[in-house]
């Protein structure tokens, strides 16, 4: 059955506009991608508080830093590739070193950028961002979580990186969901294996565990939207329970969620961890769906892999 999917980018743009109404210190910056990132929704409502710096991502980040110096709360958007890559040093040396109140909402993260190919598929952004002191890193999984993560970023002082998917995503959480930055959530209890994930791969993992159930495997699913600071307790507790951990992410297996989990478990409760994501390689062109399949991130591929692990 086809699911109804929502554009999380539109959710981002609309949430910004709502926040902008309530707080005149919210300003938004973009680098010539306001239609793609959907910051145009805010721009239309509050043109005087929207700044398009053109195709200049370094200037984008440091201009936001300057606005933060005057007490504004800048939300900065461009593609994850250019936000985290092109302007990494501006983020590191100006925004994070000075601990400025800048929110980087980067769209088009991961392999699901699709047809544009490897040059536009940021598979390293979470790794790059979480290695910087003072930075909070959030990867929401659906519209509800995206909205709440944006609202949290606006209310929390300090630099935040939020990865917003290019693809439209099905609803996972209902209105009762409460995003808690310090907590990872066990979405499904299980005893045979822990599957730790976030972002666009959460829905695939949820579908995958149904397939695993048919094979008699009772998997636990933990959603970790906040990669940094990581909720170590929940990760360790799940590992203690199942003794076997798999991480799944739309990102390189080097430096992202999988690495963060390994860092915590190796020091606190060493169990075998299998990281699933893209390997040490670049992406390529294709539809988002085809690429998810090709790189082994769809529910059926995940199920095959996990069955193999448990054999």
């Amino acid at each position: 059955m086809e699911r109804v999917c929502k554009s999380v980018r539109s959710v981002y743009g609309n949430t910004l506009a709502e926040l902008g109404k309530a707080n005149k210190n919210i300003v938004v910056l973009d680098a010539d991608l306001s239609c793609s990132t959907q910051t145009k929704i805010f721009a239309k409502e509050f043109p005087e508080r929207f700044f398009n710096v053109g195709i200049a991502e370094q200037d984008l980040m440091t201009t936001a830093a300057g606005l933060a110096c005057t007490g504004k709360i800048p939300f900065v958007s461009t593609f994850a590739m250019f936000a985290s890559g092109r302007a990494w040093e501006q983020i590191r040396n100006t925004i994070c070193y000075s601990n400025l109140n800048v929110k980087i909402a980067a769209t088009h993260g991961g392999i699901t950028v699709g047809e544009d190919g490897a040059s536009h598929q940021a598979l390293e952004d979470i790794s790059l961002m979480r290695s910087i002191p003072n930075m909070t890193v959030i990867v929401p999984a659906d519209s509800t979580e995206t909205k709440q993560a944006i609202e949290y970023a606006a209310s929390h002082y300090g630099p935040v990186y939020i990865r917003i998917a290019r693809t439209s995503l099905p609803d996972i959480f209902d209105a009762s969901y409460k995003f808690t930055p310090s907590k990872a959530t066990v979405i499904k209890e299980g005893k045979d294996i822990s599957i730790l994930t976030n972002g666009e791969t959460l829905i695939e993992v949820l579908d995958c565990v149904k397939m695993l159930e048919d094979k008699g495997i009772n998997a636990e699913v933990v959603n970790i939207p906040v990669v940094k600071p990581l909720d170590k307790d929940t990760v360790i507790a799940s590992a203690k329970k199942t003794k076997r951990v798999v991480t799944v992410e739309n990102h390189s297996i080097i430096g992202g969620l999988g690495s963060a989990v390994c860092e915590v478990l190796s020091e606190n409760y060493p169990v075998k961890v299998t990281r699933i994501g893209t390997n040490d390689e670049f992406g390529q062109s294709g539809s988002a769906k085809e690429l998810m399949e090709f790189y082994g991130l769809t529910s059926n591929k995940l199920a095959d892999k996990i069955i193999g692990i448990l054999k």
Partner: protein
Amino acid sequence: MINQISESDIKELETISKKLRREVLIMIHNANSGHPGGSLSSIDILNVLFNKFLKKYPEGKKNPDYNKRDRFILSKGHASAALYAVMAHCGYFREEELLTFRKLGSRLQGHPSSVKMEEIEVSTGSLGQGLSIGCGVALGLRLDGLKSKVYVFMGDGETEEGSVWEAVMNAAHNKLNNIIAFVDRNRLQIDGSTESVKSIGNIKLKFEAFGWNTIEIDGHNFKEIYKAIESAQNSEKPTVIIADTIKGKGVSFMENNPNWHGKAPNKEELEQALEELK
């Protein structure tokens, strides 16, 4: 009509510059590291700016008008010794603290840190970022209806960074006439003359082509420095003051010598320098 600076003012500025130069050298010698060349080339401008123009509240946030202060961003953060010396002179902190420069636990970091020292507007050190930060500050001040100026101090070698020109376009596009930038044109960078490493050429024409108001001055002539900053106050465009300076100015053996970009004077060298700066 441009206000003139009096002869007695100039005499006083000369005395202060000599004192600041001595302090810079003592700090760098004491730390056994630092950047004397580019600190000495910038002293005279910082002296005039901080003592004659910059609206400042060294007492900090407890002053209700703190928001109305002018903002200063040292984009060439390696000239930190010069900045600290002039800030101490202006009462931001006690002069004794200058001797903690570059020492473990000091607020006076090798490159300015706004986290260690809140009197610093924003951390700098990595070149090519200050002007762009300045654009953001200028936009924020404009949104708040504040008339404060944003002074950004850059090096000439720094203009080799592409990000500088992103910011130059930004300031012109947004008509940020509250920005007054300086280029410390001492013509030297670590590896040699700017023109041999990567020709900077005519900075004035470059900025003009990007839509800026430009002023060229002798960066060691107090009258010219004063007049330039004064005339930039009411510009309709962002202003850049391109200051012809001498790297290592005031110390004979440091002047125009790139070897003194980032080297501390030893005891004998310090003594000779202090003698020259009496």
